[in-house]
């Protein structure tokens, strides 16, 4: 089911002018705070009425200002997970979870609510009051509550931003299972490269109320379009592959990337045959014109320089084609000059770290 969003809106000095479409899967709205991500997602939910715009999911038109059409939020059946859990304090966890079910049409109700409860690991919390839950538990209940309302679309507005690293790590696996097991389109708002890389199929990069880039996660997160210095530092490649073997003695897994190259990933608890995503931060990739020897790095991929994009601040982003995959490297402009890097040159990408997502 495809989602079409077009919106022009004004909030004081801030103006929003954005349009994108999504054909299912996880679409990430990505950008710095203040870039208009939340405004856009509130327009999709119907919590903000845009000055001009259009929101359509499949055949259902929810907003069309040219026809003065506006469906209020409670008739949209769009689930919304907020940054704060927003659980109802006067209801138990079970009643919170059931809240949306009371209002969803009988024909659309999830037949097996237990599955969602299990998926989120909140079965033991049902009798508790929201006030007695930890931040991570609250957020999982909030996600469950949104899902049990049987939404046609799930909107998640930085659901992990209010949590510490430990809680984030606790919830991310649940979100991945959600993506893989619940077949509804998800719009995921975030300013974290790591989260987006791990979850998103498609990334909509926003800045200053406008859309800077739209594309597959690996392309947009690749580098040059990321605008802020912080985002650029975090830029990298997102690659998918299949676990080939696992060396328990050394705690290493061999992953055969879709493009053909194999890489070794440490500390991974994966089993052979599993499809995984890996993220290689561009700043952790070195470039050598000859095959380096006597190096601690395990992964050295042969490739060809496909693009060199200087950022004007002394650094350059390189795209290196390694078989069918592209690896991003972030090196100094001086290094580009000294090594004589030009398009088409055969190089070795020395990968210092690989994060399994």
């Amino acid at each position, binding site marked *: 089911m495809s989602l079409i969003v077009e919106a022009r809106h004004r909030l004081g000095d801030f103006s929003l002018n954005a349009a994108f479409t999504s054909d299912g899967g996880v679409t990430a709205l990505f950008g710095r705070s203040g870039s208009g991500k939340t405004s856009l997602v509130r327009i999709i939910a119907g919590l903000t009425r845009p000055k001009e715009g259009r929101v359509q999911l499949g055949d259902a038109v929810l907003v069309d200002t040219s026809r003065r059409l506006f469906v209020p939020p409670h008739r949209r059946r769009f*689930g919304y997970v*907020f940054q704060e859990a927003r659980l*109802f304090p*006067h209801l138990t966890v079970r009643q919170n979870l059931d*809240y949306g079910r009371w209002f969803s049409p009988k024909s659309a109700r999830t037949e097996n609510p237990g599955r969602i409860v299990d998926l989120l690991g909140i079965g033991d919390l049902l009798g508790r009051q*929201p006030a007695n839950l930890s931040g991570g538990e609250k957020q999982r209940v909030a996600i469950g509550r*949104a899902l049990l309302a049987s939404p046609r679309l799930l909107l998640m507005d930085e659901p992990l931003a209010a949590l510490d690293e430990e809680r984030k790590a606790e919830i991310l696996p649940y979100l991945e299972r959600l993506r893989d097991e619940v077949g509804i389109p998800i719009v995921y708002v975030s300013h974290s490269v790591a989260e987006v890389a791990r979850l998103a199929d498609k990334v909509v990069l926003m800045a200053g109320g406008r859309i800077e880039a739209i594309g597959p996660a690996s392309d947009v997160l690749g580098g040059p379009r990321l605008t802020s210095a912080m985002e650029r530092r975090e830029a990298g490649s997102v690659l998918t592959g299949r676990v080939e073997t696992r060396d328990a003695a050394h705690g290493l897994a061999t992953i055969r990337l879709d493009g053909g190259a194999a890489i070794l990933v440490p500390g991974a608890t994966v089993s052979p045959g599993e499809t995984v995503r890996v993220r290689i931060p561009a700043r952790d990739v070195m470039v050598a014109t000859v095959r380096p020897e006597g190096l601690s790095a395990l992964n050295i991929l042969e490739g060809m320089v496909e693009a060199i994009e200087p950022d004007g601040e002394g650094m350059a982003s390189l795209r290196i084609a390694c078989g069918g995959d592209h690896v991003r490297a972030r090196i100094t402009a001086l290094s580009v000059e000294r090594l004589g890097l030009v398009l088409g040159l055969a190089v070795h990408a020395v990968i210092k770290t690989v994060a399994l997502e």
Partner: protein
Amino acid sequence: MDWLALSDEEWTAIRLSLKVSTVAVLVSLPLGILVALALARGRFWGKSLLNGIVHMPLILPPVVTGFLLLVLFGRRGAIGSLLDEWFGIVLSFRWTGAALACGVMGFPLMVRSIRLSIEAVDRKLEEAAGTLGASPLWVFLTVTLPLILPGVIAGMILAFAKAMGEFGATITFVSNIPGETQTLSAAIYTFTQVPGGDAGAMRLTLVAIAISMAALLASEVLAQRIGRKVHLE
């Protein structure tokens, strides 16, 4: 201890006061919630005017309020004559008139308490309820109302206490007819006006103190029981 035994007329005054106050509070409650909602959430022309009118009985001398009620709701009054003509309802010199006077006097206290609790409600919760499919009316019934319940109860108790103690507006509007409009306060006043009435005034005073304390305790217990559920977040 004989002097503590209440006479029939005294019992009548106590029962009447309880009836008048209870009816005053229950009838004004829905209107009180609506006005509190309008004042807390609404943005409309004349909001300050509405606020002023609601608070008027708090500032005006009770006798003035009573006289205004007489002018408006008396048999020949602008509203009273219509009520009589269309519905056959007569308020002046009836216990229902006493309930109206008590309701009007307690109204600002009730509205104030409910309004404050509405303003304290986190509107983000209502937004969340909307995205879960609840229409604005359901959001109010399932989220807003439970959350403001402590404030509503506090407002009811305040209005009830005010109604029990109301004297000036009531006696001006509906006079002091034993068995019909003679409330507890009016009965105490009557006792003080006759020689040897001190014992009767004292008996009713003790009853008034007992009722006020009971109402206060009941509100504490209720607010605590509900508050335990609501204020943990």
